[in-house]
């Protein structure tokens, strides 16, 4: 496979032997098309390519050896902390071209299935408030990272991937190169991270405007500022000290409910009273994101994102009310909902359409479609009918999003997402820096 001088060193938690079949002796820029999976890429200062490996897609980034190992470790730690981030696969060093020229080390991560870079999202002419919803998702991600003690150093839309999460998005960290894990972040670290995010996002949006992917009239600066506001609101809600009179103890539960509503569980709440016992101070000490997704997981075993879970739980509640089973143990009802409603619905999506959207996202759209049909027809349309209509009329118009193949992010417009251009249409110069 390669020149005699090459002695590869692979660091990976569970190395896949198929890794050895990839052309490591060739600079990533020059990899042959047959090895590549053409996925939309963000703006990166490194050469990044996607490749197929044992039926999955991996992202490969050429980067200095020390930095590669460091980022690999950081990504592993972030996974342990349960922060939404890409899964590190490994680091390969010791690459050499056949002429003996040393090649840069690579960091390999698992491509996040059904994820989309922001450029693809903007190019799909989605709903007008796409930018706002991306910003909301990024604010949640930043708060979660900061709560875990992670200083990002280079927050941007390019360093984030987005997955549909019911009507919103969920954001995942992709690039941890400039990051650091601390016990606790200082105010300065958080505010600098936020300022970098603000400036980068505005820059990225201005770039989309320069490329005519985003309307000139959208106020890029206002969108960037909105991130800072959303972040501050959320941070305050999660960490603020609240004081009230002893008689207002209901406010303890109210605070917990509010945090649950925001999608967070309270792991530890600090409650102190003053010496006379007339006032109470509360402050959440440990909050964990994923309140709804954890609850759904416990009830049904379904592993979905936070807002999808919220939507599914609402449907479960409706099911419980409609079948008049409020008195019954919730987990029994949940089991029946899963086997009688959810699974038959997502299973009736024909196989060839299953790469369009994640099952939970399909179900979310089914619920939307049911509402729409019921409105239109003035009756409660039963799920099997909804599914038939959705599969026939809606799903085929959706782009394939499991791994958006064969097209440049910039070219991902509604009209041409169906037909996949050839891999060699890829423009290697799309990567700058």
């Amino acid at each position, binding site marked *: 496979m390669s020149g005699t001088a090459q002695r590869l060193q692979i660091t990976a938690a569970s190395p896949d032997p198929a890794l050895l079949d990839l052309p490591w002796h060739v600079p990533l820029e020059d990899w042959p098309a047959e090895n590549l999976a053409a996925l939309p890429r963000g*703006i990166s200062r490194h050469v990044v390519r996607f490749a197929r490996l044992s039926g999955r897609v991996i992202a490969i980034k050429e980067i200095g050896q020390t930095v590669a190992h460091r980022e690999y470790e950081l990504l592993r730690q972030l996974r342990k902390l349960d922060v939404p981030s890409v899964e590190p696969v490994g680091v390969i060093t010791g690459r050499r071209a056949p002429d003996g020229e040393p090649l840069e080390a690579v960091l390999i991560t698992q491509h996040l299935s059904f994820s989309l870079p922001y450029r693809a999202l903007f190019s799909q002419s989605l709903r007008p408030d796409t930018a706002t919803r991306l910003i909301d998702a990024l604010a949640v991600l930043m708060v979660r990272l900061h709560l875990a003690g992670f200083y990002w150093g280079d927050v941007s839309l390019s360093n984030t991937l987005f997955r549909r999460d019911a009507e919103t998005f969920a954001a995942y960290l992709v690039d941890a190169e400039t990051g650091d894990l601390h016990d606790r972040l200082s105010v300065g670290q958080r505010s600098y991270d936020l300022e970098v995010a603000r400036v980068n996002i505005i820059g990225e949006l201005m770039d989309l405007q320069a490329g005519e992917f985003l309307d000139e009239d959208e106020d890029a600066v206002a969108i960037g500022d909105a991130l800072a506001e959303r972040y501050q609101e959320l941070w305050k809600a999660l960490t603020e000290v609240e004081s009230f009179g002893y008689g207002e103890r209901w406010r303890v539960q109210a605070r917990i409910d509010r945090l649950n509503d925001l999608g967070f569980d309270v792991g530890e709440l600090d409650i102190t009273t003053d010496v006379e016992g007339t006032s109470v101070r509360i402050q959440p000490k440990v909050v964990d994101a994923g309140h709804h997704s954890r609850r759904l997981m416990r009830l049904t075993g379904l592993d979905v994102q936070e807002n999808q879970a919220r939507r599914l739980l609402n449907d479960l509640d409706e099911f419980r009310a409609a079948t008049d089973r409020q008195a019954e143990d919730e987990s029994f009802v949940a089991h029946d909902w899963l086997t009688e409603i959810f699974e038959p619905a997502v299973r009736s999506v024909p196989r060839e359409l299953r790469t369009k959207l994640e099952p939970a996202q399909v179900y979310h759209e089914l619920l939307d479609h049911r509402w729409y049909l019921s409105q239109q027809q003035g009756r409660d349309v039963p799920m099997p009918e909804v599914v038939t209509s959705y599969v026939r009329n809606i799903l085929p118009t959706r782009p394939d999003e499991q791994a958006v193949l064969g097209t440049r992010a910039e070219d991902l417009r509604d009209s041409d997402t169906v037909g996949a251009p050839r891999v060699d249409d890829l423009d290697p110069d799309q990567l700058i*820096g």
Partner: protein
Amino acid sequence: MATVTFDSATRIYPGTERPAVDALNLHIEDGEFLVLVGPSGCGKSTSLRMLAGLEDVNAGRILIGDRDVTDVQPKDRDIAMVFQNYALYPHMTVADNMGFALKIAGTPKAEIRTRVEEAAKILDLSQYLDRKPKALSGGQRQRVAMGRAIVRQPQVFLMDEPLSNLDAKLRVQTRTQIASLQRRLGVTTVYVTHDQTEALTMGDRIAVLKDGILQQVGTPRDMYDTPANVFVAGFIGSPAMNIGTFPVLDGAASVGQSRLLLPREAISRLSDDDKGHITVGFRPESLDVVPAGTPDSFPVEVNIVEELGSDAFVYGSLTNEFGQASQVHSGAGDAQVIVRVDPRQVPAKGDAIHVRIRPNEQHLFHAGSGERMS
């Protein structure tokens, strides 16, 4: 533009006893290029981040010019972190790539254009301003990224290991570019690296840190010629200085059967703490190969010869005759010395050569404290 002052600035991480940065006192002149250097964990990055406002200062103060910024938010400090992010925007022109941060800040269009043009002139990018980044070479793209920081006209540039991502060749090129650019701009710059060669080649002055404590600050020449202690002596210079600790007998450092005559005032300065020993340092380039039997010389057994064309280095062991072999350390390890030899007269592997330290090129340190004697 401004001076930077660390005034007994201290950073203690919660849950640790030893400060990550311990009472750092450092004054950086207006327009100066100061390099913070040291091994990992020495506190150099923490110091830089304290200046950037990313780390809390637990005691002491930090000033930019006359302004105490100890409790000022990072974005209000008028500093620029360079190279943290140099991904360029593909649809924007080079000019927009350089000026967009000013646009965000609400700077008037005409002023943005003026500042971008000034920066482009310094960076040799004037003729590319209306092109897209795609049309530029790798080096030009890097300069555009630098232009982003320049147009903001910050008081201080901060750079934290900006070259660690680059391959060896590009690292040397970029090193030179940054240093010459900084001199042209005259903006006070604080630069962090673990690489002493980078420090020596780039800095007007270098500050060496170890375990959170400033060891020495001075020009590259100061650090090389008069290291303040054994740590700095071993850290600065490549290959590293040979350093050994020997008993002092009859006015000389006793090295097996050989003797290194010591200046009288050095002997008079020995303290109780030194327990009759002295630490002697000698750089590989401060040794002459001499005939056997030359006074003050000692024998070295050649293990490897490294020929670099312009230079050649012998990596050798001290022979048994040299009784205190295990007391000597060098860049090549314990009981090893490195000797620079004439590249046209290299000894063979296995040979024994005799070397002598050139007069006045030895460095004497207290064996107890490690501090320089004179």
